[in-house]
Structures are given as C-alpha cells and as structure tokens.
C-alpha cells in the first residue's frame, strides 16, 4: 500500500508542476485579455484599488473613522476633510476607506459560501437527475421566486440584525442562480463520451462529479459569482440602510447613507460619497464579470 502510494506520488509530481506553470500562463494571458478591453480593465483597476485600500486602510485614511468631534460636525469637503465630515464630526473619507474592509469581508464570505453550495447542488442535480433533481430544483425555484433583498430581509429579521447575520442571509439568497447555471452546464456534459468512459472505468458518481464535471462548470460559475458580487454589495448596502446589516459605529456604506439621509438636503456629501463608492464598486464587479465571461467562455470566440 505504501509503495503504491509512493508510486502514485512519483507520477503526479511533474504533473502538478506542469499544471502549475500551465495555470500561471493561463492566468497571465487572462489578465492580459482583461486589460485589453477598456471596460473590464476599468473593473479590474477599481477592484485592485479596492483591495489595496482595504489592505492599507490605516495608512490611507487621514483620520480615525470612529473619533467623534462634535465641534467639527457637518463640515463641507475641504482641504482638511476631502469628503467633508458627518453629523458627529467623523471624517467621511476615512469612513469610506475603512468601509472597504467591511464590503470586502461580505463579498469574500458570501462568495465562499455561495460558490461551493451552488456548484454542489447544481452538479449533483444535473448528474443524478430524477426525483433528486426535481426536488433540488423546486427548492431553488422557491428561493428564486423571492426578490433577493426581501428574502434577505426576512432571514435577517429571523436571525437578528448584525453584520454576520446579514452575510448569512445574503449567502442563503445568492446561491440559486449559480446552482441553476451549474445544473444546465452539467446536463450538457453528462452524456459526453468522456463521462461514459470514466463510468466504464468504474469511477464512482462522486469521482465523476468532482473530477470530470466540476472542472468543466468552474469557468461559468466563476463568471456568475463575479457578476453576483455586484448584487451582493447592493443587498448588503440595502440591509445596512434599513438598519439590519452592519450596526451604527461600523463604517458600512449603506449604514452611512442611512444616517446621512436626515441631513441630505443641506449636506449632500453625507450620502453622495458613500453612494458613489457603492456605485463604483458594483459597476466594477459587473464590468469585470462581463470581461471574465468574454475571456473564459470559449463559445463566445
């Protein structure tokens, strides 16, 4: 058994190295393609800036986002406060900069939940078919029949307000489109000869799904997840705005708009800048998703 194991490792060693270099080359050519078109290049650049901002927030932000200075409240944009200050005298630029961390956390966790769930539900439903397929697809239908914001609202209301619950609620509402997509892709592959061949070699259903079907579904799922990130940001901001997402001291963009709403008519900067940030980032994810689809989908070429 041990000797057997060693042997198989021997065989896979150059394989993994080659796979890595191949993957690296593919990644480089993918980036080149994304930067080639102006729209996806814009998306990529904005998201890179977003990532760097979140990473370097303490360096970039000129002030502490939570320091209250009532003597300095509701200042319009100036050299000292580029985006002005809010009703408690907090610097809006600093709050937006720290807010990127919250947005990115939400996006990352939601994608990590949603991608695998959607992929597993979709590929198993597509591969097994029959009553299992019907059952799973009716469940996804039920999820899909609600507007995602309303459904997340219901979940958050049930689970209690807060950032973690908002993330769970968004995750629960964002997987059905991905499951649908993965199922549709699986249906086109499952009759393929290479699946039949691997079935004849004695591969179990699990092995076929994980090794043969999932790699084929991955590109389109990746595109779909990127596109849904825009919706995730909007839903998170919406929940924050309604007071059900991130709670007040946290510099979440939606919550910032919600508190700024009362002063909106005289102090436009309270809502304009966080609103602009939401717009920019969700637009960037949409454009990047579109670019990824063009780059990854061989059918479009």
């Amino acid at each position: 058994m041990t000797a057997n194991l060693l042997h198989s490792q021997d065989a896979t060693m150059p394989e993994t190295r080659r796979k890595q270099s191949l993957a690296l080359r593919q990644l480089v050519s993918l980036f080149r393609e994304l930067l080639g078109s102006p729209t996806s290049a814009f998306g990529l650049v904005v998201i890179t800036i977003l990532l760097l901002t979140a990473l370097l927030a303490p360096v970039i932000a000129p002030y502490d986002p939570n320091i209250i200075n009532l003597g300095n409240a509701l200042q319009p944009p100036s050299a000292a406060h580029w985006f002005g200050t809010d009703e408690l005298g907090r610097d809006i630029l600093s709050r937006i900069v720290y807010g990127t961390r919250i947005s990115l956390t939400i996006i990352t966790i939601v994608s990590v939940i949603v991608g695998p769930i959607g992929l597993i539900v979709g590929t198993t439903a597509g591969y097994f078919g029959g009553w299992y397929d019907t059952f799973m697809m009716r469940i996804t239908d039920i999820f899909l029949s609600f507007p995602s914001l309303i459904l997340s609202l219901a979940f958050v209301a049930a689970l209690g307000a807060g950032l973690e619950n908002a993330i769970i609620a968004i995750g629960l509402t964002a997987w059905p489109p991905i499951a649908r997509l993965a199922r549709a892709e699986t249906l086109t592959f499952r009759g393929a000869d290479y699946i039949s061949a691997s079935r004849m070699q004695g591969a179990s259903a699990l092995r076929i799904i994980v090794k043969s079907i999932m790699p084929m579904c991955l590109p389109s799922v990746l595109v779909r997840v990127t596109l849904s990130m825009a919706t995730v940001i909007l839903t998170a901001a919406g929940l924050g705005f309604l007071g059900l997402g991130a709670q007040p001291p946290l510099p979440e963009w939606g919550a910032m708009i919600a508190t700024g709403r009362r002063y909106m008519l005289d102090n436009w900067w309270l809502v304009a800048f966080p609103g602009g940030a939401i717009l920019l980032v969700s637009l960037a994810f949409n454009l990047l998703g579109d670019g990824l689809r063009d780059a990854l989908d061989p059918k479009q070429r």
Partner: protein
Amino acid sequence: MNAIEVRNLSIDLGFGAAKRRILGDVSFSVEAGESFGLVGESGSGKSTILRCIAQLLKAWEGDILIAGQSVRDMPFDEYCRMVQMVFQDPYGSLHPRQSIRTALQEPLRIHRMDRQVERMERALIDVGLNPDFLSRYPHELSGGQRQRVAIARALILEPRILLLDEPTSALDVSVQAEVLNLLADIRARRNLTYLFVSHDLAVIDHMCEQLAVMQHGRLVEIMSRDVLATGRASDPYARDLIQASLEYDQAV
C-alpha cells in the same frame, strides 16, 4: 465458453399506445478470442446493443452474459476489468481539461493497481505513442493520436473484451488503416475478444470473423466472413447491403 452472450435483448420506449420497440429480441454469442462485427445502416440499433453491454444503458430486458456470468449480477469493478469500450468520436471521448497522464492514471487509481507509471508508459508504447505524450493535453493531439490514447485507456485495465463503437469512422482514411491495423495487432498479441460496430462492410471484412447484419432494431442474419466475398446471404436485406457495398467499392 462464450465471452459475450446476448439473449433476447430488447428495449421498449414509451408507455401504452406510444410504446415503441427500438430493439427486438436480439440474440448472438461471441466466442473468446473471436472478433464479431455488427453492421447495419444508421439507426438500426448497433450502437444501442453496445451501450447495453457496456451498461451505459440500464433499461433493457433479456440477458447479457460476460464469460458465463450475467452483467446484472457481476460486481461492477470486476466487470470494468473485463470489458472496456472505445468510442466513436476521439474529440469527445477524452476529457478536454485532463492530461493524458490523468486520463490513464484514473482507472489505475480507481482499481488500486500497482506500478502505475510503468503501466501508463507501457500502454502508450503499445499503441505506438511516445511516453512523452503523458504530459500532453487532448487539444495538443491529432484525431488519430487521440484515438490511440483512447485505445490505450481502454487497455490499461487489461480487459479481455473490447467493445468498439465505430472506432475509425471519425478519422481520415489513411489514419483509419493505421488504427485498424493497430487494433488487429493488439488483438493478436493479447488474444482479446472484439465486438466491433461499423456501418462499413469493408472494415468489418478486414477485422471480423463473424458478423451480424441489423435492420430496424432486429438482427436479420448472422454469417461468417466468407459469405461477404460470395454475397450468398440468405436474408434479402443482408444480400442487398453486401451487394451495395460491393458496387460502391467498384465505383470507387
């Protein structure tokens, strides 16, 4: 003992009034070490029979025996090491994102075979490919090379029976001859049993000792290769088919 025995194999689709028989009471047997051909026009059910024997289709009635044992009772991994299949389309039968190494190693891993590297290299050499091909991907190979890899993959579990579903019809004529010679060569070396489906009588004539002619989901006649040369088939459809093939060859 017969390597493959098919008794009263039939398939019905639909229910009630819409019920249609697409394969009716097919019976034949193939001796161990023999090469048996199935011919017929498109849609006559030849590939369907193959897929039933391959257990890719489950909804059939009748009996299929492999080496005297019913396929329904046979443990599946034992069956896999007994029977393998080569598919028609070399472009669809290899996973586009798996290297040749992965394609060949998967069956070895599933069946926990020893000396994997040696077996994989041996398998490629046996089908006339360089072991360097292991690290290539299907899109880097030609159609003929892909079909050789598919044959290597089918042989890597050392089966006794090979099901061949028009293995050369998607290939160029010159490559067809190479692959057919390779298949004939492998059979002679390993004493394999072939069940060969083709619509090309010339290919069957070259490859098989026995053949069965099919029409509309029925087996109309089983004959030996000698009958092809004389054209003295007893069934009128089989006679027409052989005659048409002969005339076509003369015209070409």
